[in-house]
């Protein structure tokens, strides 16, 4: 239904009925006689207004049920003035109907028009018809000749939904479905029917040019008649001229655009370019050649890669310079705000921490546009003007003298493009591709050339990050390079011009350092990347800020990053890329998250946590290597966290029966955690896994050894050490002091080892000793001395070393081959089912014999009391015992180990029993010791190979780690154990004190 209403008084209303679906478009006949309408029912109808009747109807369009579904808006148009023709967009053509007869008299088409025509509009003179199509193609025909006069592509390819001619006929205004208004200028169509190349002359006062041009074209066009072939030739000729014109035009256009950024959209249509970058001004610069090439009609459009306009230099943490109220800098120190309106041109400096300095208000008489802020100074810079050089101003507020400000003029023709402040220095990158360094007090320092136009700079401590244009990017990409320089004592270049990875079609938004001094940056896709020093200075994506945005147009404006705690500080901006100065935005904190796969699963989560933890604690090594103080506590904390995660992953893959994966994980662990893993594996009855882990533990221990003593073979060294240990033991016995210093032990051991090397028997003994010694080390807590002395006394004193040694040797050999047997024996007590599994257990027994740790106290005391319980275990062990070595030691030890194992399996019972027993404490201690023993045994076992005395120092740490690890294990395996652990430890300490 179409209604016609008299506008002036709405007195007359006429209703035209007949459309069966929503009406798409209506147009009046210039003579007010007819009215044409198109509708979703597919028909285009001409009505007689007076009679309210349908004059004619054509079923031209596709039927749809709603306007939103229509392929084309089908905006009709009557020819102005006489209204002789009605233009109807149909598919990719425009049909022309003659008034009166309503016959189709022609059809306008273009081979480049591949999408439906949306809009048709007549020029005021009625000679030309412009059509806008879906996909953004604008085409202008000369109606008389039915030939294309001009075609333009909307630079962003948005659908043109409306067109309007300037009354003079030289410009077309158009709108697109994304809400942009554009102006198509320089239409050379006001002349006669010449179809020569219409010079696309973008924007800005081309009227004069037009007239001349048109006149000339007219002449030639007239003389040429309408033969297409000839025309083409003419077009070729014309082309050259046009090219010149066009190119000059381009240049002018470019200048104009550079002058006025806000006018970007006018004249943004360029001849025959299919692809445009995002920024208009770049197009102007880059499109000269393609535009010329496309000037000739019907010439194929250039659709190769188009260079991207290089992004402009910016200050990270600032909002765009054209704003009247803007942030010139927002960083971890404070905020610099710039005001530039009628009343005021000022700069406000405000510090987050008012202890640094009080807020400052400066008048910005020089027109500073760039700022940086550090704990020491404010650095400001302005670009040069016609008569004034570019200036650098520094407010050095932390200076202790009275002169707190200095200013430097840059050489003529050199503009500051980016600046930054570090600790004690300031850096300025200029348009002359120079990097100038100043001290914060104003002394000029080094100067060097940059490989390309700077994009931004960031400073932190002694590090300077420079991002520059490495080359021209294509198709929306930026080609950036990055340099990382380090000043200070040893000046060097950490990164020399590596390409800076960016997300596809994005540009750099922020670059800087974390509070700990690791470089990171953010691109326009919201991806935050951080330098990974451990992986050869590569960049690891650590956060995607867009993931947390609710809507497409929301962004996070990053102002800083911290590695410990892991925080990305940013300001949420609704519907924009940067925040307004008022109301004062609040900083939000985003967590980091590595984009690993399947982080919704437990495995993925832990992997992500682990690698994130590793990545975010890289800075410890960096800081310590560059001589800064490192927070030891935080470092050990992070190590612990990582190892715990590894252990959890290990347990998880154990559950999933992924033993290979377990081994892979074990390779990432530290040695003492591996021993834990071994225990875990053996307890969960994965003998194969435990064996492999043993190998890994061995490797790790030998590695450790090699690090310390690269010359010696691991095994030998281990033997020696073990021997050393043995010998040390007597030493220990002499020194019954509970607290032997690890260093002493090491020395002793080494010495002993050297001595021992010569004697094979001793060597043989050594392995044995090792085992014993190893546990002693873990036990380090001096407690064990007494115990040590006892077992040793038994072995050493009771039996000549040679004899005992041989016996032991056999045992040892057994251990090497069948250490598993031994282990199972000892382990068997604990876990009868697992015969071969536990090598660590085997060392335990020996270790126990040697009484390394708490064992003595715990074992003896506890064992004696619990002997009954232990006996069954001992019985189990006895069979292996036969094969096993020195009776006394083994016996003593075995029962103990058996007891422990027994305890392990029958903890609940014991626990239940404990409360009843008076000696609950003792039992607990015993249990705790059992555990520690087991851990120690593992250690011992692993250390057997090592035989390192050096590890003793680590023992305490290990214990802690183990306990923690145990706790984590416990969650999986034994909760009760865990509860016992601390008490056991405590008891152990108490013992040691005794």
């Amino acid at each position: 239904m179409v209604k016609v209403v008299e506008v002036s008084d709405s007195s007359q209303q006429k209703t035209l009925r007949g459309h069966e679906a929503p009406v798409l478009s209506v147009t009046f006949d210039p003579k007010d006689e007819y009215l044409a309408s198109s509708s979703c029912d597919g028909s285009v109808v001409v009505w007689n207004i007076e009679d309210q009747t349908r004059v004619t109807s054509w079923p031209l369009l596709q039927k749809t049920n709603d306007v939103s579904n229509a392929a084309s808006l089908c905006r009709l148009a009557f020819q102005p003035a006489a209204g002789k023709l009605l233009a109807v967009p149909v598919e990719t053509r425009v049909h022309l109907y003659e008034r009166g007869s309503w016959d189709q008299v022609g059809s306008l088409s273009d081979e480049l028009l591949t999408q439906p025509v949306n809009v048709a509009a007549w020029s005021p003179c009625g000679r030309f018809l412009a059509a806008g199509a879906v996909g953004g193609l604008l085409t202008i025909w000369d109606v008389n000749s039915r030939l294309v006069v001009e075609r333009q592509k909307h630079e962003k390819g948005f659908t043109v939904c409306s067109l309007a001619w300037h009354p003079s006929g030289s410009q077309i205004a158009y709108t697109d479905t994304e809400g942009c208004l554009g102006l198509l200028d320089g239409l050379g169509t006001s002349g006669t029917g010449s179809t020569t190349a219409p010079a696309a002359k973008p924007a800005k006062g081309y009227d004069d040019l037009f007239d001349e041009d048109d006149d000339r074209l007219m002449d030639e066009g007239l003389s040429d008649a309408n033969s297409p072939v000839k025309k083409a030739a003419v077009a070729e000729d014309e082309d050259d001229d046009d090219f010149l014109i066009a190119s000059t035009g381009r240049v002018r256009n470019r200048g104009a655009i550079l002058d006025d950024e806000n006018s970007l959209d006018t004249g943004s249509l360029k001849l025959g370019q299919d692809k445009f970058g995002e920024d208009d001004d770049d197009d102007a610069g880059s499109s000269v050649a393609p535009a010329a090439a496309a000037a000739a009609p019907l010439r194929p459009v250039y659709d190769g890669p188009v260079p991207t306009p290089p992004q402009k230099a910016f200050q990270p943490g600032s909002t765009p310079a054209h704003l009247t109220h803007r942030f010139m800098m927002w960083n971890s120190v404070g905020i610099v705000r710039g005001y530039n309106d009628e009343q005021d041109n000022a700069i406000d400096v405000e510090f987050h921490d008012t202890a640094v300095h009080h807020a400052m208000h400066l008048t910005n008489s020089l027109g500073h546009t760039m700022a940086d802020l550090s704990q020491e100074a404010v650095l400001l810079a302005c670009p040069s003007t016609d008569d004034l050089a570019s200036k650098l101003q520094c407010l050095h507020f932390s200076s202790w003298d009275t002169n707190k400000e200095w200013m430097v003029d840059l050489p003529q023709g050199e503009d500051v493009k980016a600046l930054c402040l570090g600790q004690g220095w300031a850096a300025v990158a200029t348009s002359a591709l120079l990097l100038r360094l100043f001290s914060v007090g104003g002394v000029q320092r080094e100067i060097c050339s940059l490989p390309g136009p700077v994009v931004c700079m960031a400073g932190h401590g002694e590090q300077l990050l420079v991002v520059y244009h490495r080359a021209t990017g294509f198709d929306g990409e930026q080609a950036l390079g990055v340099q990382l320089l380090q000043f200070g004592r040893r000046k060097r270049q950490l990164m020399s011009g590596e390409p800076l990875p960016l997300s596809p079609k994005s540009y750099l938004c922020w670059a800087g350092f974390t509070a700990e001094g690791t470089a990171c940056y953010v691109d326009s896709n919201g991806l935050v990347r951080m330098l990974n020093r451990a992986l050869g200075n590569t960049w690891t994506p650590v956060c995607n800020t867009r993931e947390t945005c609710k809507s497409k147009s929301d962004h996070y404006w990053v102002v800083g990053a911290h590695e410990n705690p892991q925080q990305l500080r940013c300001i949420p901006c609704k519907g924009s890329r940067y925040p307004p100065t008022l109301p004062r935005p609040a900083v939000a904190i985003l967590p980091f998250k590595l984009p690993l796969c399947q982080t919704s699963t437990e495995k993925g989560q832990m992997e992500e946590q682990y690698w994130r933890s590793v990545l975010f604690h890289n800075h410890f090594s960096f800081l310590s290597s560059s001589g800064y103080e490192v927070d030891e506590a935080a470092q050990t904390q992070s190590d612990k966290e990582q190892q715990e995660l590894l252990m959890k992953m290990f347990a998880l893959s154990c559950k999933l029966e992924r033993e290979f994966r377990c081994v892979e994980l074990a390779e990432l662990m530290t040695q003492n955690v591996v021993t834990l893993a071994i225990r875990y594996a053996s307890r969960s009855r994965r003998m194969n896994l435990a064996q492999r882990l043993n190998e890994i533990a061995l490797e790790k221990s030998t590695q450790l050894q090699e690090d310390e003593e690269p010359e010696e073979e691991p095994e030998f060294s281990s033997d020696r050490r073990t021997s050393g240990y043995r010998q040390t033991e007597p030493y220990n016995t002499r020194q019954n002091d509970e607290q032997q210093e690890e260093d002493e032990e090491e020395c002793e051991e080494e010495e002993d080892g050297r001595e021992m090397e010569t004697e094979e028997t001793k060597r043989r003994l050594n392995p044995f000793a090792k085992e014993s010694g190893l546990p002693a080390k873990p036990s380090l807590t001096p407690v064990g001395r007494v115990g040590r002395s006892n077992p040793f006394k038994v072995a050493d004193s009771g039996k000549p070393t040679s004899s005992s040694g041989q016996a032991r040797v056999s045992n040892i050999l057994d251990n090497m081959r069948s250490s598993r047997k031994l282990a199972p024996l000892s382990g068997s007590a604990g876990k009868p089912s697992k015969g071969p599994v536990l090598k660590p257990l085997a060392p335990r027994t020996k270790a126990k014999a040697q009484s390394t740790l708490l064992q003595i106290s715990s074992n003896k005391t506890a064992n004696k009391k619990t002997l009954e319980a232990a006996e069954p275990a001992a019985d189990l062990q006895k069979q292996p015992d036969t094969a096993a070595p020195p009776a006394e030691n083994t016996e003593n030890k075995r029962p103990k180990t058996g007891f422990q194992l027994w305890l392990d399996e029958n903890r609940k019972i014991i626990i239940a029993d404990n409360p009843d027993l008076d000696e609950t404490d003792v039992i607990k201690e015993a249990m705790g010791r059992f555990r520690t023993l087991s851990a120690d045994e593992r250690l011992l076992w692993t250390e057997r190979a090592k035989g390192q005395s050096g590890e003793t120092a680590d023992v305490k740490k290990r214990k802690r780690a183990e306990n923690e690890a145990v706790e984590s294990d416990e969650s999986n395996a034994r909760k009760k154990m865990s509860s016992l652990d601390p008490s056991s430890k405590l008891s152990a300490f108490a013992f040691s004190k005794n």
Partner: protein
Amino acid sequence: MDPSEVEFLAEKEFVKIIPNFSLDKIYLIGGDLGPFNPGLSADVPVWLALNLKQRQKCRILPPEWMDVEKLEEMRELERKEDAFTPAPSPYYMELTKLLLNHASDNIPKADEIRTLVKDIWDTRVAKLRLSADSFIRQQEAHAQLDNLTLMEINTIREFLLGSLNCMYKLRSNLQPGATKGQFGDY
């Protein structure tokens, strides 16, 4: 309860502040606060926020509900509904008063917010009076009022309980009291 006591309770509510000093965690009986990083928001109880604010050590971020649009919505809802709507915060009145009195410079459109909260308060108190009135008039034994805040209960408690007591006395005096009197007379 005294209104100041209610206000005291309200001071335990947490608000966000942006400190301009840096301080490690502080350990208080009521819980650990901080750490405070300049420029980063931290949650602290209102009493501390006000104290810091008075010493110009922080900016207070208004609670989420303290926003003109949200309050307008609530006001409309409150006016439309016969029953009480959930209050923006259990201490909305107290917090508004405290924050606006001490930190109005940190709260955008402080005056509008003051008016809006006062409107909401008035509406709610009017409802409260109305319901008290009908409660008494119909001589109900009990009534249930949801979504009241402590301050609102407190405003009417004194009066309502007192008057109920009075009425009880009066009513009970009518019969037994009267008889007693008669007995006494006799």
